[in-house]
């Protein structure tokens, strides 16, 4: 697999665009990512290795409404073999649990696609703990999974409908447990981001899904990658703009510049990388 596709798939599409990040924000993003990693616990090494930037972004958005400076503390990094500053706070354990819930969803998806082995099974105990502690979200995840499966079995060709389950789930993730006055804005932002991720992932997987026969809404519509991009690119941009518009109406007290970078620069960059218009090595983390 090409390196840039591997990177996008493994680390997620939602990441900053480093050339437009300040040094401070660059360090802060890493500290959030490391904070979620640390929150996953010492026993979940495989799990920690599969942590995506999307989850770090989730923690950054949810932590944007806190009071006071960031709570930073040193923690040992098992991959870099040194102590690094990590962000601490209630958003970290939540993000870690979300990572585990999504890992569970990935395991179910892999099984459904016929994969006999899914690496996600290696940390079953951590997943079970997360599903117990975040029962409501887990139920929402199962409902999403069921709805997605139903659409796939019906060979859904409606591009909007296909993205709906994941879109709603991400909206719920962003808004879960937040103050009521922020719920609508975060939900709108999350739904647009979820829709964007779904469409971009489908765009990215066209070749692989054509070969394997796995469900892909663009393949179902008889599109190849170029024609699918032509069709979906304006709508991806609309998702980015709507997410940004929603973000701008929220009363965030910090992390604004990082979120802005991801929405305005990181997301278009991710689209360009998927279309091989730009190399992943030119600045993205």
């Amino acid at each position: 697999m090409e390196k840039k596709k591997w990177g996008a798939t493994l680390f997620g599409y939602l990441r900053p665009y480093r050339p437009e990040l300040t040094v401070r924000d660059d360090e802060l993003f890493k500290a959030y990512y490391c904070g979620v990693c640390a929150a996953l616990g010492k026993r979940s090494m495989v799990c920690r290795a599969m942590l995506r930037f999307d989850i770090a972004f989730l923690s950054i958005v949810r932590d944007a409404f806190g009071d006071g400076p960031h709570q930073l503390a040193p923690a040992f990094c098992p991959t870099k073999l040194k102590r690094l500053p990590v962000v601490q706070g209630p958003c970290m354990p939540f993000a870690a649990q979300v990572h585990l819930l999504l890992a569970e969803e990935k395991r179910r998806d892999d099984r459904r696609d016929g994969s006999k082995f899914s690496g996600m099974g290696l940390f079953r105990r951590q997943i079970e703990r997360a599903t117990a502690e975040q029962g409501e979200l887990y139920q929402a995840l199962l409902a999403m999974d069921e709805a997605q499966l139903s659409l796939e079995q019906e060979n859904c060709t409606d591009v909007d409908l296909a993205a709906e389950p994941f879109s709603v789930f991400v909206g719920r993730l962003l808004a879960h447990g937040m103050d009521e006055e922020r719920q609508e804005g975060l939900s709108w932002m999350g739904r647009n981001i979820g829709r964007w991720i779904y469409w971009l992932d489908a765009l990215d997987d066209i070749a692989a899904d054509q070969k394997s026969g796995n469900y892909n809404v663009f393949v179902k519509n008889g599109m190849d990658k170029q024609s699918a991009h032509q069709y979906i690119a304006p709508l991806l941009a609309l998702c980015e703009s709507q997410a940004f518009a929603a973000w701008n109406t929220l009363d965030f007290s910090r992390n604004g510049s990082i979120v802005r970078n991801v929405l305005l620069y990181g997301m278009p960059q991710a689209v360009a990388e998927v279309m091989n218009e730009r190399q992943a090595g030119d600045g993205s983390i």
Partner: protein
Amino acid sequence: MDPYKVLGVSPSASDDEIKKKYRELVKKYHPDRYASKPKSEQDAASERIKTINAAYDQIQQMRSGGGAGAGGQGYGGASAGYGGASSGYGGQGGYGRQGGGYGQWGPFGGYGQWSGYGQQQSGPRGDQFDEIRQLISRGLIVQAEQALLRMNDRPAQWHYLYGLVQMRYQRYASARDSFQTAVNMDPGNPEYRQALEQIDAVYSSNRRRSQGFGLDSTLCRICQCMACFSLCGGRFYCC
């Protein structure tokens, strides 16, 4: 508030009389008519519209057997969440208030250019579209969609309004397709063309920004407009 007094009708007036009077008042105080007036007059008209809408909602509530309230915009609506609506997965927006859940969101709702009072047709069908525009402006998206789907005759304006409804549900593909159909059916209509161009303009700006041209003024306008939209209580400003 005496809603009948606000609308200037008798409590014994028929539903049609009340509806007719309501439309007259909305047209009279519509923000488009005050675009060139001083801000104080614009604000006064905006407040007047809110009062008129509240009065009309209250009368509808009273006459349908419900209490005086907030115009039927309670949480839950029709089939919130997964798999509720017969029209398919998450058919009614999935969250929050009736009306797609996001009455103040999106660039394609509210008063002003996207309701397009200047574009109405005369006659019974024109009245129907007029009413649907009102529903969309007030965030009653579920009702707007139902009213549209009940119509057999679907000219360009139908597709345009359907596109606005789809935008509120974040069904962007369907919305763009609807706007495109409206433009194809009525190429000379600036309102329909502008809706389609808005989507393409966002894409062009995003590409320019990501290719290193920085935040250009077009993007600033669009994103600010979208942010302004919610801050201004549903009115769409083109900055």
